[in-house]
């Protein structure tokens, strides 16, 4: 435009001194910042990302651990409950068993005692009957010999006589 011609400047054409100054100044800026500032900034950026993500990860890990512990406690609790139930059942079964045992033993014992008593009774009765028989025989024989005056010395005959007499008595009694 005529304006450019007038002042001697065309805004599209660079001033070469400015190119040089711009290059040097910008190069200095880039050098200083890239060397002294930007590496630390990236490192800090990474550190912060690590800190945040690490924190999140740690929180997640803690959460997971807590959940796991909770699960574990629940499992243990359930286990303990089944165990307790089992023990109670066992105890109940044991008690029942013991009761049955005791009852059975008592019944057996009573049966045994009763049987022993009966046996003894029979034995005693037999003994008594035998003794009585002997005694009654002797008494009867003595009495009869006194009355009759006659000695029945013959043992075999005497025993036969008494026995016959007693058998007669018994059959008469049974009748």
């Amino acid at each position, binding site marked *: 435009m005529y304006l450019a011609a007038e002042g001697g400047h065309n805004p599209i054409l660079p001033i070469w001194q400015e190119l040089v100054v711009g290059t040097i100044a910008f190069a200095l800026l880039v050098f200083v*910042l890239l060397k002294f500032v930007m590496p630390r900034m990236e490192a800090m950026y990474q550190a912060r990302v690590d800190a945040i993500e690490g924190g999140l990860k740690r929180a997640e890990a803690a959460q997971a651990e807590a959940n796991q512990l909770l699960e574990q406690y629940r499992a243990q609790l359930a286990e303990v409950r089944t165990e307790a139930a089992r023990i109670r059942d066992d105890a109940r079964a044991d008690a029942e068993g013991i009761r049955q045992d005791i009852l059975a033993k008592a019944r057996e014992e009573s049966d045994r005692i009763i049987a022993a008593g009966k046996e003894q009774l029979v034995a005693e009765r037999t003994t008594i009957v035998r003794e009585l028989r002997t005694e009654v025989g002797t008494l009867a024989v003595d009495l009869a010999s006194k009355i009759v005056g006659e000695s029945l010395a013959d043992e075999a005959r005497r025993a036969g006589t008494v026995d016959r007499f007693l058998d007669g008595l018994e059959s008469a009694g049974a009748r």
Partner: protein
Amino acid sequence: MSGQLVVAQDLPWPPSVNDFYPPAVAGPWVTKFTLMVWLAVGLVIIFYMAAYRNPKLVPSKGQWLAESVYGLVRDNITREQMGNAGIRFAPYFTVLFSFILVTNIFSIVPGLQISPNSHIAFPIVLAAISYVLYLAVGIRKHGLVKYLKMTLIMPGVPWPMHFLLVPIEFLQNFINRPVTLALRLFANMFAGHLLLLVFTVGGFVMLSADNLFVQVTSVFSFAMAIVMAFFEALVAVLQAYVFVTLTANYVGTSLAEEH
């Protein structure tokens, strides 16, 4: 009319290209523009050095600010454009972004009020670095021949089309990219400054008119200048973002396995 006003009030009206070329402070090496660039370099270095003198996991305010810029460039620009493989470029892109942002913001800083990037030399330097960077990355990763083939030849196209496509691709990838990169930044800052000039200087020109109505109307001009200053701030951030995003995109395509 305007010429008369300029004479009367010594105001440079209308704004012209010459407003972008203030007299040198001391020769062509020490001008307002070169000084501003050094100032920007100094500010950015001091800011990052101070913010990262003693970095902590739980950051201080300055460190937080510095890390926000880095995080923006790293995650929202670099990773978005290049994927995780591009993270190693994030530091350079952060420096680039910071430098462009600061120099762009100069356009609305009182006392400076113009961005160094409105002189095309500085955008050219930045675009040239991006250009060399994405070429170097591509050649280093694929080798020269494969990189050229990858860039220029579109897969799955009937072969006669290549007579048309190869020159277009060449223009696109090796000429247009760096030129538009530099021109976009330059033109935005140039136009922004021009707009601010129009409304502020225009306001003063109207204020010094001998017509009361025109003098009162200058209020709108100043109001517009304020609106434009905010707009300029937006453009400053946006252009820094766009420049870095495109650079990341170009480097990303150099790293990519396919066309």
